[in-house]
């Protein structure tokens, strides 16, 4: 059902150097049902990744996004695939939001050929350029200038689109943010910096890492907005506002107040630097999926049964995708030497024992 309805955001926006947008957000039953579905799918996907990791089918780092889903989907609801998104290593759901498939996700996580990076990237390195998703970056802070570079290119090509660069509260202290933001402001680039403040950078609480944890204000001379990142509609409203702002006036910072339920990565139980009460409190009071569930029920846009069915469906979707991913073969050994360059000019490349393994790069 596409009839417009309006909903108030949970809390007002807090603005820095700009006028806050209205708390009244336009939406539709269709959109809300969609929000519920995709967030439930994301949640299920991340839980399944956790299990696969524990079953040793996923290796290395694996950073899960459960708790933060509203940021990914609220942002998508406000923009198009012509707009660019770039994020850090916590990238599974952002990739899904850009139209990536579960099969690609699970195959990549398990290092299989069907992965979005053919198994060569791993958990932190998902991309989907055709839908404006530029990764998937493992070095804290690096994606911020990269994202501003995307905005540079958009302006250069007069594409009338914008770029969203997502980063954490920990990354918010990185010097390259301030360097790149200065240039974005000098050159009026259509760049939106989205600080996903989940209040911890690994085991470090925001206030231990930042003298001023008011991240929406950290742009100083650049406008900012603090947003309830657990409220998909607030995120959507903020991103819409930011996109308009950025096309007209250049960069803006959105601080999303959000939370990660899991530990930082799989080796972190996530419970030594915060209390279990804190986690369960957020789950009970601010969970982004539960918020939409309540909204759908209270507005009579869906029944409990319908929502439960949806949850069952996504569970099956996830299970099917995992089964399919497990069928996908490991990458062919020849992939070791592919993609080092786009153009290899026939140069030689070497394996560990160069007398045994060498390749001519195409």
């Amino acid at each position, binding site marked *: 059902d596409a009839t417009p309805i309006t909903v108030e955001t949970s809390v007002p926006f807090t603005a820095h150097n700009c006028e806050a947008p209205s708390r009244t957000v336009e939406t539709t039953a269709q959109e809300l049902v969609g929000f519920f579905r995709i967030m439930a799918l994301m949640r299920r996907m991340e839980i399944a990744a956790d299990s696969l990791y524990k079953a040793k089918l996923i290796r290395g*780092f694996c950073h899960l996004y459960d708790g933060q889903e509203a940021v990914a989907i609220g942002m998508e609801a406000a923009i198009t695939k012509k707009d660019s998104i770039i994020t850090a290593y916590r990238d599974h759901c952002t990739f899904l939001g850009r139209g990536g498939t579960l099969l690609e996700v699970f195959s990549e996580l398990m290092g299989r050929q069907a992965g979005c990076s053919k198994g060569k990237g*791993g958990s*932190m390195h998902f991309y989907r350029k055709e839908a404006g998703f530029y990764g998937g970056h493992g070095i804290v802070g690096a994606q911020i200038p990269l994202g501003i570079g995307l905005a540079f290119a958009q302006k250069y090509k007069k594409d009338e689109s914008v770029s969203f660069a997502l980063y954490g509260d920990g990354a918010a202290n990185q010097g390259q943010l301030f360097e790149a933001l200065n240039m974005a402001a000098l050159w009026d680039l259509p760049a939106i910096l989205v600080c996903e403040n989940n209040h911890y950078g*690994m085991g470090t609480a925001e206030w231990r890492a930042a003298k001023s944890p008011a991240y929406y204000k950290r742009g100083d001379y650049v406008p900012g907005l603090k947003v309830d990142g657990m409220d998909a509609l607030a995120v959507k409203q903020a991103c819409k506002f930011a996109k308009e702002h950025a096309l007209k006036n250049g960069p803006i910072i959105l601080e999303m107040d959000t939370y990660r339920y899991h530990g930082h990565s799989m080796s972190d139980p996530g419970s*030594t630097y915060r209390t279990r009460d804190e986690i369960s409190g957020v789950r009970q009071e601010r969970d982004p999926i539960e918020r939409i569930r309540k909204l759908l029920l209270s507005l009579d846009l869906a029944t409990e049964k319908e929502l439960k069915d949806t949850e069952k469906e996504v569970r099956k979707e996830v299970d099917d995708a995992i089964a399919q991913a497990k069928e996908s073969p490991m*990458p062919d050994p020849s992939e070791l030497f592919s993609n*080092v360059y786009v153009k290899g000019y026939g140069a030689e490349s070497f394996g560990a024992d160069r*007398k045994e393994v060498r390749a001519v790069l195409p």
Partner: protein
Amino acid sequence: KEMTVREALNSVLDEEMSADPRVFLMGEEVGEYQGAYKVSKGLLQKFGPERVVDTPITEAGFTGIGVGAAYYGLRPVVEFMTFNFAMQAIDHIINSAAKTNYMSAGNISVPIVFRGPNGAAAGVGAQHSHCYAAWYGSCPGLKVLVPYSSEDARGLLKAAIRDPDPVVFLENELMYGERFPVSAEALDSSFCLPIGKAKIEREGKDVTITAFSKMVGLSLEAAEILAKEGISAEVINLRSIRPLDRSTINASVRKTNRLVTVEEGFPQHGVGAEIGMSIVEDSFGYLDAPIERITGADVPMPYAANLERMALPQIEDIVRAAKRVCYRSVPMAATA
């Protein structure tokens, strides 16, 4: 007594901080979190937040601060969660630390240790697997140490912390949990290994194998296999990339007349290239076969398990190369 490499490193930090109030530790998650890999476990509790300093994720900033503190006369130990992240701070390691004693003709010395895991871990992909031994090892003004065992870890980290110059101390995440026997001597708080000296881990007479860090273990296993096939391999644990112990390596090759170098870093301009040239320069006439290198593959580190395995030296690669230099004349196949 046995001890893991992690425990060895932890015990050194503890002892050196106890012995010298100028020594302090800084880095990400070193304090309340007890270290991303728990190397600094217990230190915050023992020495307090003034000496075990949790930093924000701002490598350029805190490395510069560490170097400045060293200028002033403190003895900082700067931990990088991995050396990949030290690229954000490498200007301070090279320009602010390595070159200052020289530029100031000795007016400002820089007693600092940069430490953390280097090279590949398991399944962490291209951005988290780079080995920087060759880069740092190329820079005059730096010393570059590469422990393999727990005894190495103790003796070399102590030497690094007590050294008056900047030291890059390259650990390996996959070795932290490895358990090694440790001598009573090495457990003494005065224990120190000499900087710039390699260790012959296993004596042999047919072929010399040089390795550092985790690759020493693989080389020892390869030597074991080679022994069964009648080849006696001498395994040299480099311990120090800079200064490089040319004399120990040359002496060994003059005895064995054959050399295989092993490293997990990228091949071009690597540690193996340097060691090979050093033999060519100083012991050319002693070589009975061309030198061989076993190295990381010349590609960014792939994630998939099968490709990752191919991208890193395996025991069979070392065995194969050693056999080649021992039995076969080198194939003079045209270079591609």
